């Protein structure tokens, strides 16, 4: 009896959530006044110019050499940053999962406290961290490294904690009943159980870190983004694309490595895992060591030099400025500034919703042919000669779309679309389209094929199998990923604003240019509020569809 009541409600929930999401998206579209004039009069010309550069990227030796150097720098920053992030994530993650604490109270406290720390560190975008670090410790490579390590450690740590708490309980209980202490449980139970998942998630994050490292240029730190920015300032699109291709190559390289590691861990091919696993571990260790040495020796940066009196002084001055020291009426005490900032906050919210909406639509239209098990016919037991071609095209567009950081997309888009919310939303959508598409395609690839095959053997056609078997099975996960990406987009909105794509970020950039530090504080408060609210909303919504 109870079931008959609950179950339609549960179904209802998923349906309701979908409807709400669509409505919210529609609402966000009203923030733009749609007219042909949204595109610059010369927008088309610009598109052609940009496209020309795309098909004939500059191949001059100078540019290639510079690209190579910049790629290396980008790689070393990302590697060094990830190394710190992993250490931080490991320690904070274990503590945040509460598996080491015995009593209820201690467990609760440890969870709340460390989850709070992880939450705070990841709620601020790496570029904002970079800005704060540059202000505090100057244009040192360490500013980039720390700026990467802090939010990435926060994300990794939270996922790590989640993994530890979501484990199947039987092996752990069995170990407990055979008398293992908490730390013994950690090493004999928890760690071996999460190892594979944690490594593959870390690899995925490493790929993201490469992109983030590239855009550190925005605060004046070197790397590929720096070259892209310089080339863009000169409107040399052919060089822009050369550097973008370097970035794509780097991302593909890491992506390839990570899928190698992942498949080695999935295939229980006994001997082979150990070989490729060990080689990967070795490569990773060498990369980390070389990166740190490079930064220390070639770049001439050393950790010790960061802790100088001057740095303390500048840092204090900067943060004092942010707290409004010496100002008669800091921005965060003025009603007018608050009004302004809140308007920006609303705009930013609208931008993020538009962005996720566009990305979702594009991914939804392309994801079916992008799944390997649909292309090779193993899921629906139907094959077409063109499947692989479509698969290839869609997958390449995914890689291209996500390899280019949203910031770079934004820099290109502002040449085409008029300043406002739309260019920001489009840039964010362009980047996230590839990510959502890839994640979704993997959901389809990982789904249980038995029900679908059984539908086929009950006589369902390919499309019937898709709508009866695939779509209902993947929908909850699709929704989860949309919400999850929306959280990430929320964090990133501030960044696309830096290049004039509207919202809080643009205001942030202006305040930064005019050294109005207390305004920065106000904007950061609004931004953090937005991020925290987005996290809460998304988490509640995700739980409801589970």
């Amino acid at each position, binding site marked *: 009896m109870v079931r008959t009541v609950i179950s339609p409600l549960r179904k209802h929930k998923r349906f309701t959530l979908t409807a709400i999401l669509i409505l919210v998206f529609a609402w966000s579209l009203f923030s733009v006044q749609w007219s042909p*004039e949204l595109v*610059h*009069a*010369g*927008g088309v*010309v*610009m598109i052609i*110019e940009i496209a020309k550069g795309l098909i004939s990227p500059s191949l001059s030796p100078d540019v290639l050499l510079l690209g190579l150097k910049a790629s290396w720098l980008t790689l070393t920053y990302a590697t060094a940053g990830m190394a710190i992030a992993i250490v931080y994530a490991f320690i904070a993650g274990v503590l945040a999962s509460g598996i080491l604490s015995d009593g209820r109270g201690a467990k609760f406290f440890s969870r709340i406290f460390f989850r709070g720390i992880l939450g705070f560190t990841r709620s601020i975008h790496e570029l904002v961290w970079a800005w704060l670090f*540059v*202000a505090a410790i*100057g*244009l040192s490579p360490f500013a980039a490294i720390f700026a990467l390590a802090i939010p990435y450690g926060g994300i990794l740590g939270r996922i790590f904690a989640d993994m530890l708490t979501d484990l199947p309980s039987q092996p752990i209980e069995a170990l407990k009943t055979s008398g293992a202490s908490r730390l013994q449980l950690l090493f004999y139970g928890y760690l071996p159980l999460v190892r594979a998942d944690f490594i593959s998630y870390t690899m995925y994050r490493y790929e993201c870190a490469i992109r983030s490292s590239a855009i550190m*240029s*925005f*605060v*004046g730190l070197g790397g590929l983004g*720096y070259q892209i*920015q*310089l*080339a863009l*300032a*000169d*409107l040399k699109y052919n060089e822009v694309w050369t550097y973008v291709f370097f970035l794509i190559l780097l991302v593909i390289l890491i992506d390839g490595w990570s899928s190698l590691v992942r498949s080695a861990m999935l295939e229980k091919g006994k001997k082979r895992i150990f070989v490729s696993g060990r080689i990967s571990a070795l490569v990773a260790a060498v990369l980390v*060591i070389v990166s*740190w*040495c490079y930064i*220390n*020796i070639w770049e*001439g*940066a*050393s950790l*010790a*030099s960061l802790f*100088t*009196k*001057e740095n303390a002084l*500048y840092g204090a001055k900067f943060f004092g400025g942010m707290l409004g020291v010496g*100002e008669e009426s800091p921005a965060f005490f003025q009603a007018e500034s608050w009004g302004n900032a809140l308007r920006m906050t609303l705009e930013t919210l609208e931008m993020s919703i538009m962005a996720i909406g566009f990305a979702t639509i594009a991914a939804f239209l392309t994801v079916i042919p992008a799944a390997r098990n649909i292309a090779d016919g193993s899921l629906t037991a139907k094959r077409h000669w063109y499947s692989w071609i479509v698969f290839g095209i869609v997958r390449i567009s995914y890689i291209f779309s996500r390899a280019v950081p949203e910031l770079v997309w934004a820099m290109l888009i*502002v*040449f085409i679309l*008029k*300043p*406002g919310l739309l260019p920001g939303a489009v840039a964010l959508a362009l980047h996230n389209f590839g990510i959502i598409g890839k994640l979704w395609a993997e959901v389809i690839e990982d789904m249980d094929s038995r029900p679908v095959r059984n539908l086929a053997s009950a006589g369902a056609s390919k499309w019937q199998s898709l709508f009866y078997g695939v779509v209902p099975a993947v929908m909850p996960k699709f929704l989860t990923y949309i919400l999850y990406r929306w959280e990430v987009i929320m964090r990133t909105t501030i960044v696309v604003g830096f290049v*004039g794509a*509207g919202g809080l970020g643009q205001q942030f*950039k*202006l305040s*930064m*240019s*005019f*050294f*109005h530090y207390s305004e920065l504080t106000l904007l950061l408060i609004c931004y953090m509020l937005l991020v925290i609210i987005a996290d809460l909303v998304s988490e509640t919504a995700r739980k409801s569809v589970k």
Partner: protein
Amino acid sequence: ACGSKDESSNSGDQKDKKKSDEVLKIGAIPDQSATEMKTSMDAVAKHLSEETGMKVEFVPSVDYAALVTAFQRGEIQLAFFGGLTGVQARNLVSEAEAIAQRPRDAEFHSVFITQTDSDIQSLSDVRGKSFTFGSESSTSGHLMPRYYLMKEGIDPAKDFDGQPNFSGSHDTTYKLIESGAFKAGALNEAVWETAVKEKKVDTNKVRVFYTTPAYYDYHWTINKVDKETKEKVKAALLSMTPEQLSGLNMFATDRFIETKNGNYEAIEEVAKELKIIK
């Protein structure tokens, strides 16, 4: 395991002294084409190095504010600032001093440009059109154009077609107008003249419809250094010959002349009026 070679010599005053003994880092606001800036600034660096005996190095920057911050932190010893950034920098480092400028900088102008076939004839016509400034921190690309627009009764935040754009550099501004991306824009007169002279901009497509009254703009500002170095650097800059400066498009001048902090008080007033400096 992998120690750094200069770890030991890195602390305190010793480092400061060593740095100024060794390298003089110079910078410039990135308001123009990056390649051109590199050629021009490298030439200046070479000259300064020959004259002062110091190692001089040009550090490119991607952002106006980043250059000001680097200057504040003492990572840049000498910078070619715009009027506004110079004022910002000297507000942050009270010992810093404006030492040299180009002759034209005393009577600098911004030009407002539009497409040849557009109906914009005077400043008041830009109302309701799309508009682009240069960088947010640029004097000739943003501050003064905004000032004269306000004087004409046009509020950039409200009266354009959409929000005004910030193109980031003067070169980008005229290219954006040429391509038709924006109806009108404002930029530095010197950059415009060089572009016309070198045919980098097609004057069949773009024309000037308004030139601002004169104001002080670009200048070299030297950071907190000892008096001797300051004098040496100043002398070196002033001694640059027309031959050395010819072909350096970034400066488009034949010599540098003296200037002083007081010359930029008017700019500071304007910035305060526009609430850019508080």
